[in-house]
């Protein structure tokens, strides 16, 4: 039994009910109170997202300022339940057009009830695809006022489409200008020891697409990944082109991708859904190009003084630049006074997070700015001699750079009417959790 949720609740941070939908009678009506008493009002909140109270299990998730709680009384499939919540939130967002928070829920509660009715019946997940649901749940949020007349022409073959073979795409779409946008977004995770050796480093990437294409197009995407290239050269019986090939550790695809063809031919071919979607996700651990190298030195000079020297070097191409670079260098709680010298950007001491924050808005490649700071501490009697240093954290975005080196080789669009398409490809690398111990 995958989920069989007995009830689903939406609560705000104070525990007020925004939405409640009971699917089954096997849980009592006061589950919200149990959740409030045993989880929200205790320190339990945030310790574990799955909790058992009495005979029921509660799965909860916080999304902006809303708690979504699923209550089950059986031995349910947890992964499925959380995925359901995530998907449901994505669906609501696509209806509200943007944010999902307390106000959005209050403004759209009738719509949410309507959707909850469709996406889950008696605790079993049903259809959650926004494409299909939008055909017959036609309320467009509160942005367009209700028409006084009921729509007397039900959308043709709406329900036929509900579970057709290509469930994610409607037929008969027409665009004047056929365009495809493809973004490769990578986040680099790094954990570096205080001695400068890389403890752990990987890249999780996703390919996001936005399609505005007419008809039922077939798309084919070629990347410079190792397996795909090898397979191609095998098929065309000519040696693979020299150049960098990337070894993907693992890939997952949107349901529109033909997995059988991926396994046999190693090409990514698909009929895309209309609009925005995530085509694939991948993970790479070998051969990661770190965009920044950092060299921190933090010296404690006696009990009341500290000296911080920080060098950071951008190792990507000189023509590229990083945006929104933020470096957070932790300092002890009892910091009294700080003074800085930076060769680029601005630095200040933020007492609320006990960090020196160094911001560089635009950071060109192949440069090496430095920060040196002096920190004065209040001497206290109570404080023990050692201060446990949290790691230095870094945030950044580097456009037109991929830490994995992944590149799009081709993106082909084929449709029977044979129209021309415009393809746009972008790359961006962001910091995931970029931690340097010091």
């Amino acid at each position, binding site marked *: *039994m995958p989920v*069989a949720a007995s009830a689903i609740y939406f609560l705000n941070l104070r525990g*007020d009910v925004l939405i409640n939908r009971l699917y*089954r009678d096997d849980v*009592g*009506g*006061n589950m919200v*109170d149990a959740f*409030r008493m045993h989880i929200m009002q205790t320190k339990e909140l945030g*310790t*574990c*997202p*799955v909790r*058992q*109270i*009495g*005979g029921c299990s509660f799965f909860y*998730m916080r999304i902006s300022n809303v708690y979504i709680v699923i209550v*089950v009384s*059986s*031995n*349910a*499939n*947890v*992964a*499925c339940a959380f*995925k359901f919540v995530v998907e449901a939130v994505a669906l609501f967002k696509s209806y509200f057009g943007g944010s999902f928070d307390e*106000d959005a829920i209050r403004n759209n509660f*009738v719509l949410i*009830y*309507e959707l909850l*009715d469709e996406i889950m019946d*008696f605790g*079993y*997940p*049903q259809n959650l695809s926004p494409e299909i649901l939008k055909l017959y749940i036609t309320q467009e949020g509160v942005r367009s006022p209700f028409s*006084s007349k*009921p729509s007397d022409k*039900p959308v043709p073959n709406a*329900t*036929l489409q*509900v579970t057709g*073979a290509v*469930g994610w795409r409607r037929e008969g779409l027409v665009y004047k200008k056929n365009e495809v946008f493809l973004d490769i977004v990578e986040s680099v995770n790094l954990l570096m020891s205080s001695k400068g050796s890389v*403890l*752990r480093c990987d890249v999780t990437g996703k390919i996001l697409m936005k399609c505005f294409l007419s008809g039922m197009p077939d798309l084919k995407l070629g990347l410079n990944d190792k397996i795909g290239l090898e397979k191609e050269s095998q098929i065309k019986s000519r040696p693979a082109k020299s150049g960098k090939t990337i070894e993907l*550790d*693992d890939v*997952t*695809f949107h*349901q529109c991708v033909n*997995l059988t063809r991926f396994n046999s031919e190693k090409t990514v071919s698909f009929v895309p859904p209309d609009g925005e979607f*995530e085509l694939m*996700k*991948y993970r790479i651990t070998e051969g990661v190009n770190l965009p920044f190298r950092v060299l921190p030195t933090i010296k404690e000079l006696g009990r009341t003084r500290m000296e911080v020297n920080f060098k950071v070097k951008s190792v990507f191409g000189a023509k590229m630049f990083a945006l929104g670079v933020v470096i957070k260098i932790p300092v002890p709680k009892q910091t009294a006074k700080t003074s800085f010298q930076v060769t680029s950007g601005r630095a200040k001491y933020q007492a609320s997070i006990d960090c020196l924050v160094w911001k560089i808005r635009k950071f060109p490649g192949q440069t090496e700015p430095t920060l040196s700071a002096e920190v004065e501490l209040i001497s206290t009697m109570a404080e*023990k001699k050692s201060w*446990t240093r949290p*790691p230095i*954290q870094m945030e950044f975005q580097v456009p037109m750079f991929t830490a994995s080196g992944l590149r799009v080789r081709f993106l082909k669009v084929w449709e029977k009417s044979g129209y021309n398409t415009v393809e746009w490809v972008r790359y961006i690398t962001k910091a995931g959790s970029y*931690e340097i111990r010091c």
Partner: protein
Amino acid sequence: MAPPAQSQRSPSPSQPSGKSELSDLKLQLRKFAGSRAPGVDDSKRELFKKVISYMTIGIDVSSLFGEMVMCSATSDIVLKKMCYLYVGNYAKVNPDLALLTINFLQRDCHDQDPMIRGLALRSLCSLRVANLVEYLVGPLGSGLKDSNSYVRMVAVIGVLKLYHISASTCIDADFPSMLKHLMLNDSDTQVVANCLSALQEIWSAEASRSEEAPREREALISKPVIYYLLNRIKEFSEWAQCLVLELITKYVPSDSSEIFDIMNLLEDRLQHANGAVVLATVKVFLQLTLSMTDVHQQVYERIKAPLLTLVSSGSPEQSYAVLSHLHLLVMRAPYVFSSDYKHFYCQYNEPSYVKRLKLEMLTAVANESNTYEIVTELCEYAANVDIPIARESIRAVGKIALQQYDVNAIVDRLLQFLEMDKDYVTADALVLVKDLLRKYPQWSHDCIAVVGNISSKNVQEPKAKAALIWMLGEYSQDMQDAPYILESLIENWDEEHSAEVRLHLLTAVMKCFFKRPPETQSALGAALAAGVADFHQDVHDRALFYHRILRYNVSVAERVVNPPKQAVSVFADTQSSEIKDRIFEEFNSLSVLYQKPSYMFIDKEHRGPPEFADELGNLSIGEAEDNVVPSQRVEENDKDLLLTTAEKEETRGSTGHSQQASFGIDDLLGLGMPAVPDAPPSPPQLKLNAKAALDPSTFQQKWRQLPVALSQELSLSPQAIAALTAPQALLRHMQSHSIHCIASGGQSPNFKFFFFAQKYKESSNYLVECIINTSSAKAQVKIKADDQSTSQAFSTLFESALSKFGIP
């Protein structure tokens, strides 16, 4: 308790100031009830919205029922939906009024718009009023045959709802067989998936009541059905795929080529973006290959990458769910993951529930090649701000030390912890050093030097203090001032609150006395005096015992209290392998997250007192009705339980009540009389096949599939215990009763057996798991049977066979 107060800035309808609001609404609704003027629907929508929002925040608006129903005659679909929602919520408490709605719902069931038909049917089934079920059967029947798949989809779940309201109506109308037909023939996969969920639920609930249920359940996992679903799996939605995959885990393929076919077909599911599908596929792979050891290993290798990806993507909650499963796999096969240890490094900002799992995994995968890196990493965490995690990491270092042969470096690290000068670090490190010394006494020299420097005043936690005292006693010859530290501890005897520490203190001072008598004598005297005067029974008894044995003979006392010790080779595992296997069977469910099998948290008797129900009773919440529902439910469950046990008594009654009574008295007197009655219970009608045969793999499959028919605890006679020196003795005995053993093992006092038996001239099998503990003279017996109805008879047979064991 906190009333559900609303925030003031809420843009939805303002708070009702009391009854006047409701009566106001009532009036307005009444005004619009019959009106068909243009624009009325808009005003109705506003009113309905108000009503629904009151309902959401828990205000009782059931008094508007009549008016709402009157307003429901509309063609506006949004209005209809709101009205249905309202009716569904309150029909149960207003069964009479609910009757009013039947009419318009039934009419809507014949609407020409399939959306309206579906909606009406769904709402009709959601009324949950038992005396209205007669009105459901007709519309459901036609709904299942509707030309539109949306209506069929709703109707299928409707059947399940009907089953929960009135099981007999549902069965009598022959709905299950209609569902079965639909499942195998419908073109729409969501209809098929819903049929599958409904049938699974109906037949597992029916299992105890009807004879056909087990057969029908079996049919769901028969080859044709499974193949039919497998072939269409790509058409199913991601949720339905989870459902189908779960079903496949129960299927038993006939040979290995079939297993490979299924795995090849499903391999691409591991690349699915939905983590739930990936986990479900992983479960299929693991379950199918259980009996093929080397393939099973390859499966681990294959599923590693997708699982690691899932862990690093998605929300923390999702990755926690996956991580828990990964944790389970790492614990089962740590060597497979030993090169991936870096994935289990903790990030600074990760929630502690994730860190805790990662620490355990790091501990498990440590081996010769990666120990150094892992221990270095763990030492980083020891300085973590999150104190519970810091402590866990120290314990993890200790655990690794106990696993490894090369502990050289680790001991140094642990000793560094002792010097870190943080109370909690010192405390945990002390406990670990103690365990380490018990396993590797050769390290005593290095450890003692450091431990000796720790001031006992800085150690407050009982466990740590006990560990320190144990070391003081054990190594008092090597520690210069051991007697004096002990002496000062004894002086503060009254301030020591933990009995455990006081017990350790007594023993330590004794050990110290044997090694350095002149220095310790006075301390020993003081300790014994304080101990004898202690109010804690155990401390008192131990002190008295020491006192007397010392008076009797000092060298005997030394042999008792401080004998030469052997190093501990393996520390006991906390969870039995049986429980671990059970959790593994329930892969991809809550069991994995709770780390206990489902019966421990689902079954009422294992769950302990229903703390939660009690507390609910004390809650003062506006609506009284709501409180009634859960308590009634609990009561009904209790009645069910009572009934089933009573029935069991009756069926067993034939063995005679008088005998049972006499047993009771024997037991009370504790005479240890033979538990065998003079006249053994008359052999039941059941005859067993003396030459039954069953191969181990079939047994395993059956054991996995069948539910436990009976589970009981039997007492064994002293003769039986005496005869049970080795498992073989019991095997021969049971064989003479046509009950064959398929596997056995264990050492005194715990033995475990798997038996099977076959019905005479029939292929119906009985499977038995029997765990015997000779020290308590009890046998835990679990029986599974192909034919549930005769399992009671078989149990009696088994019991009588077992009771004759050991009697010549």
